[in-house]
Each structure stands twice: as C-alpha cells, then as structure tokens.
C-alpha cells in the first residue's frame, strides 16, 4: 500500500485537492471557436466552389453569427483571465512556442475577416440596410468585388482556428488526458460538425440541408473514429494516460461522456440523419440541436476531466 499526503498542509485555492483553474469560460470559448471555424470553413469553400446561390445559409446567413460568436468567445477568454487589466500584452508579444499566444493572433486575424464577410452580405440580407457613410458604401463595393480573396484565407484560417481549439489543450504535457496530438484534429472535426448543425438549423432549402447533412454525417463518423483512437492511444500509453482513459471507462465521467457525448451527441443524431436520408420524415431541429449540445458537453467534459489528470499526488 502506498499513501501520500502533505504534512505541511497544502490547500491552495483552485489547485488543491485537484486543479480547477479553468472554469466554464474555457469550454464555452472552445465551443464558440470550433463552431465559428466550422461555419467559416463551409462558407469559404462553398463560395470558392461557386455555390453561393444554391447554398445561401452556408455562404451568407450562418456566417452572420460568427462575428457575434467570436467576440463572445473572446469575452469569455477575457473573463477567465485573473490579471485582466494586463490582457493587452497578448498582443504586444509574439510567442510562437505558446499555443495561446499564436491562437490569440489567429483570432485577431479571423475575427475581422468574418466581420468583413458578414458586412459584405448585409444589404443582401437586410434590403433596408444603410451604411450611413459614403466611404463605407465604396468600401463595401470593393469587398464584394474581392470576396474570392477573402474566401481563401477565411477557409484556411478557419481550419487553423478549429485545430487551435484542440492544440490549446493538447500542448499541456502535464495534463495526460489532453496530451494527445489527436486532440487538434478531433476538436476541428467536432467544431465543423457543430458548424454544419448550425447551418442545417438556419437553412430553408431542402437541397442545402441534404448536402450539409451528408457532410455532417461523415464528420460524425470521423469524430467517433478519432475518439476511439484517442482512448486506444491512452490505453496503450504510460500509466498516467491509462488512468486518464479510465476516467471515461468506469471512472467519474463514464456516464456523462457516453450518454451525452457519444450516444445523444453523436450516434443518435447520426441515426436520425441516416433515417432522413433514406426517406423518413425527421424534424431536422432534433439532430442539429443534439449535435450542438453534444459538442458543448464534450468540451466541458474534456476541460474538467483533463484538469483532474496529473503526474503527482
């Protein structure tokens, strides 16, 4: 039997008995970031493919949500800082070694891109919209002419943003549950799936919903594959990683992970999408909302469980 205790007494707030330094703000931010990445990626790609007319929700409507989601996400990040008045130093330093450092810069680039993209569709969406100033009208015309040059970087930066939400966690060697290189692609795929679900919710065209629904199904299958591989990788890893996997395989997160993330968040919506594809009538709201909830709960569980995994004590 081995027993370890602090004889000097140690009960530091948010550190002992287990780490809890990141609260609800971080998973919310990861969710909003992933969602934005998914929407912007599809918007960019379908614009480049010339499907602007066939896919209005993908290219025009859903991206309207992105600036709001990104600003809200950034605000969540700000709320999580403990030394808030010094936050601007994120942007007076360039530290490529730090995922949080370059992630902050990626957000600094993609947020204005998403605002430009949405602004260029404002008049189309709201015919009574008026920019008030003439130079804004001229600028809008210029943006509309050059949309293709925005679409490319938007799609590329969306992928970087999606991967970043995973790398932010996976770069921490000290948290064995996060410390897997699969987390970047996994969060990217999950983010794209939640983005697709948002587009499905907003779309009024049956054809568009069918195309995005098919893509979403593919993303869910890839996500399930990544989750299986992640857990297999942990079980084949070092002791701390085996312990991390056991949080989901009999440990305290088993029920929440399998019920809310795997079954209700992935398998069940996938089944509903398949049923709809073969001709059954399924209200599209159900799988879409389930996917969004699953994605959100997945991030909450990963952030919370990851902080429980450690090397010592």
């Amino acid at each position: 039997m081995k027993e370890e205790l602090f004889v000097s007494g140690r009960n530091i707030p948010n550190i002992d008995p287990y780490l809890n330094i990141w609260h609800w703000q971080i998973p919310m931010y990861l969710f909003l970031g992933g969602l934005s990445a998914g929407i912007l990626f599809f918007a960019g790609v379908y614009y480049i493919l010339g499907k602007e007319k066939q896919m209005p929700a993908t290219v025009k409507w859903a991206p309207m949500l992105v600036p709001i989601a990104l600003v809200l996400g950034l605000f969540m990040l700000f709320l999580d800082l403990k030394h808030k008045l010094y936050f601007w130093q994120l942007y007076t330093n360039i530290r490529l070694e730090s995922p949080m450092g370059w992630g902050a810069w990626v957000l600094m680039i993609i947020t204005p891109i998403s605002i430009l993209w949405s602004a260029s569709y404002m008049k189309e969406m709201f015919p009574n919209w008026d920019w008030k100033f003439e130079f804004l009208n001229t600028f809008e015309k210029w943006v509309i002419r050059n949309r293709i040059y925005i679409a490319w970087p938007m799609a590329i930066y969306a992928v970087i943003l999606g991967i970043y939400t995973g790398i932010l966690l996976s770069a921490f060697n000290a948290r064995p549950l996060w410390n897997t290189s699969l987390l970047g692609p996994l969060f990217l795929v999950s983010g794209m799936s939640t983005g697709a679900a948002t587009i499905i919710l907003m779309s009024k065209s049956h054809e568009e919903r069918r195309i995005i629904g098919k893509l979403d199904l593919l993303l869910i299958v890839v996500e399930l594959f990544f989750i299986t591989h992640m857990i297999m990788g942990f079980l084949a890893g070092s002791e701390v990683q085996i312990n991390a996997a056991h949080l989901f395989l009999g440990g305290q997160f088993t029920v929440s992970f399998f019920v809310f993330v795997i079954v209700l968040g992935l398998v069940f919506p996938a089944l509903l999408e398949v049923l709809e594809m073969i001709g059954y009538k399924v209200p599209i709201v159900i799988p879409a909302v389930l996917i969004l909830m699953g994605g959100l709960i997945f991030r909450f569980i990963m952030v919370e469980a990851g902080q429980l995994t450690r090397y010592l004590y």
Partner: protein
Amino acid sequence: MRYAMAIDTRKCVGCSDCVVACQTENNVPIGFCRDWVSETVDGTYPNVSIELRSERCNHCDNSPCVRCCPTGASHIEDGGIVLVTQHRCIGCGACIQACPYEARYSHPDGYVDKCTFCIHRVRKGENPACVSVCPTKCMYFGDLDDPNSDIVNVLKNRKFKSLAPEAGTQPQIFYLV
C-alpha cells in the same frame, strides 16, 4: 551557472520549517505556499517505510511553463531560475496547467506566483530561506557547474532521484534517497 537543490530524504523530519520560512521571507499570502512537505508511506504495518520530501518548483531545464506563456512573463533567469514577471502576467493560467508539479498558483492579486529560489538572497550570495532555516541541514543549494560546491559533492556520492522525470521536464531538484 546552473542553480539546483538537493534534498536529503533521510535527514528530513517533516517539520515544515522550510514552508514557514518561505512564507515569511516572500510574503506569501495566507492559505498559499510556494513549497510544501509531502510524506509517502509505503507498505503495511509493521513493514512500512516513510519518505519525507520538501517540494517546490523544480526550475526545470525544459520548462513547459515558460514555453506555454503567451506573453513571456514566465522566463528563465541567469542560473536557470524560472521566474514570473508580475506586470507581464495576464493570469491566463496556462503555466499552471503546464506544470506537472503543481508548483504554481494564482496570487490573490491576479498574477501567477511561485518559488523563485529566493533569487534576491541568492544574488547576495546567501542561500534560499528554506535552505538556511532547515534544522537538520537536509537541503543543499548551489551551482551544478561549480565542481567544488556542496551540491555537486553530495550528488556525486549519494543516490538520488527527481520527481516525475517521465514528464520530460528535466527537473533540477534532486532527492537523495
């Protein structure tokens, strides 16, 4: 120059004097600590063994906290001492997540705080507060690059281990066993 510490687990009695000395010397807020004493009991009575360790920031050679800091507030000073510049820290908590030794905490004033190896004393040629008060003289502080220092001597002659070396951090606190 490479500062490091060696702690004799066979001499330590777990009195926690090092903890109190650190709190006093560095004005550590109440309820927080930069060093702590852990006790590992192995076996079942009557065949038990106890190991006492005074633990703190390991001032790692490959320090993940410095790597992940988005502003450069966490940095490495001369002699390999890992420090946090208070006015550059935004309190994002990344370094706290990155530390496998749970050696960092969020100071009530917002910035991240940790053991400094008492750099203000070391620069004057004194030992860190914890080392200087130890009643059993179980702690050795010194420069690993100086072949005549106590720490090099003791590490040459005794078996030692470090904590969680598998985390890849190359910790610089050595426990004599």
